[in-house]
């Protein structure tokens, strides 16, 4: 048998015949919302007007307010949602996948309708501050989610984001007030995050303890430590420690003047700009650099990485630490970035929401950031509607971000693919 002439098997990727598997998830979800729209906007229609306000009084350029009649707009938009839901059923029945933009458009229509319904009354709905609040509320989530993305891309599930945020918040307040330097406070926050990450890394990587367990226990530990430290250290010396210090806003010249966009994105303190940079850097780093290639290799197939000379556990260790630094920095937002001082358990479960953003964002820094923004928006919607008076009890609005999360992980994300070795310790 001569080898040179042996039939060369087809080297093209296996392209198997394909038919669309019909998934009724999207039509079902849309129908549920459309039904809600019909019930709320039509059966519980509210007469009167809804006013959307886009500009703040001091804005240079002003966009005029928009006032609409609540009931007609609600009815029309409810009908639109019903039509869109029907369209999605029709599409799936014909084997067409409901495109993402369609779902997004549906969400926007529903949201406008909901706002027109809920914000009815003589108080205008301040659109700009609704969005501004969404951005600020999402900043710690963005930091946490970036930490989560890096950790999980490297193969270590980071449930300890909560602990890293809390540790960062505590140390930033402690160091900033003790030294009087907020820069040192930021550095301290990052270091605190790294220290928490060390515990996670040691137990997950060296002692092979289940990573979810370590994460949960670390969160309890950090809660205990910061509460203890608060009572025994910060609160024991109120003259010197835990004094209110907040980072000043640094409006970006030019950009911050743009109506709506300017105040929403370009008039923040340094830590928010760090978040922007971090998102871009993590995205670029993960997908376009040697570092990112190695991180992803270690999270997908550690043994393969090992066989090409990459130190798997070392890579994991340092990247979990890096993730800790980023999440810890996010902790400083709670103190230096907004409240100015530390209070017990002030992160209030945001770390877990950040974890949800990681999954919702399919382990991608950009998508995770968008997910974080969505959670921020849901939370702030609650604030805003509470102020202008809304027919929905405040507790139900407060539930909103959590309901959104469940919807997200159950409905929209489905079984998206985590890094293959995520959560699995590497033993040679």
């Amino acid at each position: 048998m001569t080898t040179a002439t042996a039939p060369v098997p087809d080297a093209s990727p296996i392209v198997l015949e394909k038919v669309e598997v019909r998934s009724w998830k999207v039509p079902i979800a849309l129908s549920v919302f459309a039904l809600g729209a019909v019930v709320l906007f039509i059966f519980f229609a509210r007469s009167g007007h809804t006013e959307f306000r886009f500009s703040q009084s001091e804005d240079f350029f002003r966009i005029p307010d928009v006032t609409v009649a609540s009931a007609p707009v609600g009815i029309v938009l409810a009908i639109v949602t019903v039509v869109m839901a029907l369209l999605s059923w029709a599409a799936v029945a014909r084997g067409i996948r409901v495109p993402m933009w369609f779902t997004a458009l549906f969400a926007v229509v529903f949201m406008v309708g909901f706002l027109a319904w809920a914000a009815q009354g003589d108080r205008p709905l301040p659109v700009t501050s609704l969005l501004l609040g969404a951005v600020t509320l999402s900043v710690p989530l963005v930091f946490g989610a970036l930490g989560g993305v890096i950790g999980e891309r490297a193969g270590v599930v980071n449930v300890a984001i909560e602990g890293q945020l809390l540790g960062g918040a505590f140390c930033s307040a402690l160091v900033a007030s003790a030294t009087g330097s907020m820069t040192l406070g930021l550095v301290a926050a990052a270091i605190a995050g790294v220290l928490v990450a060390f515990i996670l890394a040691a137990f997950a990587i060296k002692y092979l303890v289940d990573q979810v367990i370590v994460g949960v226990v670390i969160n309890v530990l950090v809660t205990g430590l910061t509460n203890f430290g608060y009572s025994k250290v910060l609160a024991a010396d109120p003259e010197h420690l835990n004094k209110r210090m907040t980072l000043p806003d640094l409006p970006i010249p030019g950009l911050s003047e743009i109506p709506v966009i300017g105040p929403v994105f370009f008039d923040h303190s340094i830590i928010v700009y760090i978040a922007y940079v971090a998102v871009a850097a993590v995205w670029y780093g993960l997908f376009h650099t040697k570092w990112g290639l190695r991180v992803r290799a270690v999270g997908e197939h550690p043994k393969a990485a090992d066989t090409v000379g990459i130190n798997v556990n070392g890579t994991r260790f340092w990247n979990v630490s890096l993730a800790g630094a980023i999440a810890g920095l996010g902790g400083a937002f709670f103190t230096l970035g907004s409240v100015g001082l530390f209070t017990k358990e002030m992160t209030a479960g945001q770390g877990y929401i950040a974890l949800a953003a990681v999954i919702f964002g399919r382990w991608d820094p950009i998508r995770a950031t968008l997910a974080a923004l969505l959670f921020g928006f849901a939370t702030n919607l609650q604030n805003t509607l509470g102020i202008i008076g809304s027919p929905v009890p405040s507790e139900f609005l407060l539930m909103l971000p959590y309901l959104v999360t469940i919807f997200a992980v159950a409905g929209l994300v489905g079984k998206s693919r985590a890094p293959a070795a995520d959560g699995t310790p590497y033993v040679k």
Partner: protein
Amino acid sequence: PSTSGDGSTSAKKSDFLPCMISDSGGFDDHSFNELGYNGLVSASKSLGVEYKKAESKTDADYAPNISSMVSQNCNLIITVGFNLADATKAAAAQNPDTKFAIIDDNSITADNVQPIIFDTAQAAFLGGYAAASYSKSGVVGTFGGQQIPTVTIFMDGFADGVAYYNKQKNKDVKVVGWNVDSQKGSFTGGFDANDTAQNTAQGIIDQGADVIMPVGGPIYQSAATAIKNSGKSIAMIGVDADVYNTDPSVRSILLTSVQKGIDPSVQAVVKAAADGKFSNTPYVGTLKNNGVGLAPFHDFASKVDPGLQGEIDKIKAGIIDGSITVTSPASPKS
């Protein structure tokens, strides 16, 4: 700052041991737990006795905390907040020799329990009136931590005070963040000075409010940050203590404070008990007994209407003599 042992600095030592248990807010809540604690510390200092304190983290801690205080042989146990009512009641029944006092609750009738309650709506009414008078935009706002009576009583009084001003002056100052009739409004969901609180305050500012009364421990700090960030001239009304004194950093924006005299009332109750004059008659803080009140305008004295203080004094007198009635669904029923 003080630990349990070192309240004993002054001369006349006594065996009297007053103790206090916080609710789940903790003693550093910048609110009624802290004020109660301050009262305990002051009273102990002046009596020259030691004291003990225990913080509760959750509702389940109340009963064990009280029982450990009993086992520490406390003579008077002050429990802070209506949440501790059941635990206090049970412990009082089991330990008839120990005296108890409970802040913000009037549900217990027992020989050894003294309720300490406040008709805060009266003071908040004055605050609302002052806010309406000071407002130039015609919009004033309030928001709360959680929707519980000890919070909404402030908001009710505040809104009623604004309404009273409107009636008197034939004005139309609006209140955002609280609707007395529907009892719905704006709450941050907790008593933390966090972003939610700051955004809530921001939202109220966006509604054009130029006076804000945040009700609920440290959330005023978030409101202060929002006010400073807004760059507008907006005034804030403090609650519980005279915030001018407790937090100098907000003096420049503080119009006044709606005071709830927890600190002095605790002092009074502790001293009475130490002197053997404990009584189970409720201590009700009102404008009349200065248990509640409106703080001075301090730095804002020159900015408010020159006649305002006079009007306030007159309304106060009216409330005291009953010619003006202030009621809230949350008012203490006695």
